[in-house]
């Protein structure tokens, strides 16, 4: 089986502009990117390079100005792709940068983690049938990210540390065993000590669900080296280099990538 057969999500010739005619600003230029099942793809680049916009487009959270996004080989764009977009949303999870902004402050951790399960369509085989099943799966997800369920299921975000809250966010993203997990700079708002716990949580979720593809947006090359199989380097809205983690980090070809690595090793 070739790599292309295993592609789960693909962005083809994606361009994106923001603003009106007068203030139009293009942030992505004809970008081609794909991620395979079971693979961890890291999108790296400086702030404002367009990496978050690219990943949001890939997950159907933004519409591209031009180009197409294919999930399991079918487009998610336009009216024709509505059903595929719905399927993508059902089969993906997202971890945001700031855990305290991504968790409802008036919801307990248990309720937040259970939300994706309650939103699954009735005919979905992954849907939990009753509160007891939901409770068991929430406890399982919390356990997986290293949070004792008995202690955390009824805790509010304000009573957690940044690392704990981010692990709750990861538990919410993985609770329905998604095929794709998007992590948008999941460690940038977390202190260094807690980053190891986040990495462990991501590693554990990969181990549990080996077919899950992860797209991680980061400018922390240490994190990327630890978790990514492949790297895409993005600069001013264009992909300047891509390859396996070892290739990109050990033998960078582009000047921009070399600069990024040099800055990271300082």
């Amino acid at each position, binding site marked *: 089986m070739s790599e292309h057969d295993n592609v789960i999500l693909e962005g083809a010739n994606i361009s994106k502009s923001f603003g009106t005619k007068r203030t139009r600003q293009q942030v992505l230029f004809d970008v081609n990117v794909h991620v395979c099942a079971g693979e961890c793809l890291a999108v790296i680049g400086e702030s404002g390079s367009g990496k978050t916009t690219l990943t949001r487009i890939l*997950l*159907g*959270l933004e519409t591209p100005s031009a180009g197409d996004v294919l999930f399991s080989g079918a487009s998610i764009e336009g009216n024709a792709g509505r059903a595929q977009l*719905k399927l993508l*949303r*059902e089969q*993906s*999870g*997202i971890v*945001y940068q*700031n855990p305290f*902004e*991504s*968790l*409802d*402050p*008036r*919801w*307990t951790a248990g309720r*937040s983690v259970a*939300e*994706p399960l309650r*939103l*699954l*369509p009735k005919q979905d085989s992954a849907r939990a049938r009753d*509160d007891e099943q939901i409770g068991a799966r929430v406890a399982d997800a919390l356990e997986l990210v290293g949070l004792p369920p*008995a202690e955390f*299921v*009824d*805790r*509010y975000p*304000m*009573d957690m540390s940044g690392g704990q809250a981010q692990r709750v966010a990861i538990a*919410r993203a993985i609770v329905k065993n998604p095929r794709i997990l998007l992590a948008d700079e999941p460690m940038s708002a977390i202190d260094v000590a807690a980053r190891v716990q986040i990495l462990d949580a991501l590693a554990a979720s990969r181990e549990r669900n080996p077919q899950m593809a992860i797209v991680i947006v980061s400018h922390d090359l240490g994190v990327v080296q630890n978790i990514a199989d492949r790297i895409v380097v993005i600069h001013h809205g264009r992909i300047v280099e891509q390859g396996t983690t070892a290739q990109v980090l050990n033998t960078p070809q582009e000047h921009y990538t070399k600069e990024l690595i040099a800055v990271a090793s300082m």
Partner: protein
Amino acid sequence: MTDATPHNTQSKQSKQSKQPRQSKRPEQLHGWRRTLHRAGIIVSTMWHHGTGRFSMIVLGIWVLVSIVSLFWTPQSLWATDGYNVWAKPSRTHWLGTDGTGADVFSWLMAGSRTNLLIVLLTVIFALAFGLLLVALMVSRNTALAHGSVVAIDALISIPTVLIALMLAVPLGASILGIVIACGFGYGLNLARVARPQALLAARSMYVQSALSNGASATRVFFTHVLTNIRPVVIVQCSLCAGTAVLAEAGLTYLGVGVPSGVPSWGVSLTSSVKFISIYPMTVIWPGLIVTVVVVALNLFGDALHDAADPLSNPRLRKAQ
């Protein structure tokens, strides 16, 4: 005799068996039991604060008197005595009589149920109307959102009294007129005050996460947005309830509120205010009740706001 005798052991065992069963820990409770447990904590938190306790006692008495007045009043409302007008408080007439010789206490008792009905209906109307406007203002359809903000800013400039006067043309002096006029005005006010908090929630990452998981906009509004504007809505509802009591008195005085003959605090005030120089007590009693109830409603809102929000009530967070 030592403690180890069979008799003592048996009595110890029977004592142990008689001990009350340990109640379940909060995290073991589910469904309505959990809701009841949380409600108990909210009530207990309010009771432990002076202002909360005061408001609960006053509002409790109001509700109780309203219910009792449906079945019993010390004197018949229509029992007038022309030879006993402006009577001082006595064993027969606890708060005296008015200019027609009717019992002031009985009229205030019966009036409490009318005012309670007006307050409840006004709050329900304002809440439904206000939340509908909030939903429009935080809509993802920008034209609808901006249009509703402009419309609310324009409509909020119309005085409630003017609305009540306009409604009096088709409806006459009626309870419905007060409810619609006040509910409309306070609904607009609630929407305007709750909008910033609602916008914060609607544009938040947790809402984005819910939407990306397939939640509908309606579901997001009811689960995330409403939960996060609840503290603001509670305070606005209590203010609305307080001002509805005042508005009932004011609109009745203007002749567009509760029709004469229907007992209410506003009717009691209106019918006796002309005679304040002859016998001020008949004005002071309903005035005093209106003041105490309005203060209690405002304090109740503040106490409930603090007690029902898990962010400001650590007992509620620990009780989960």
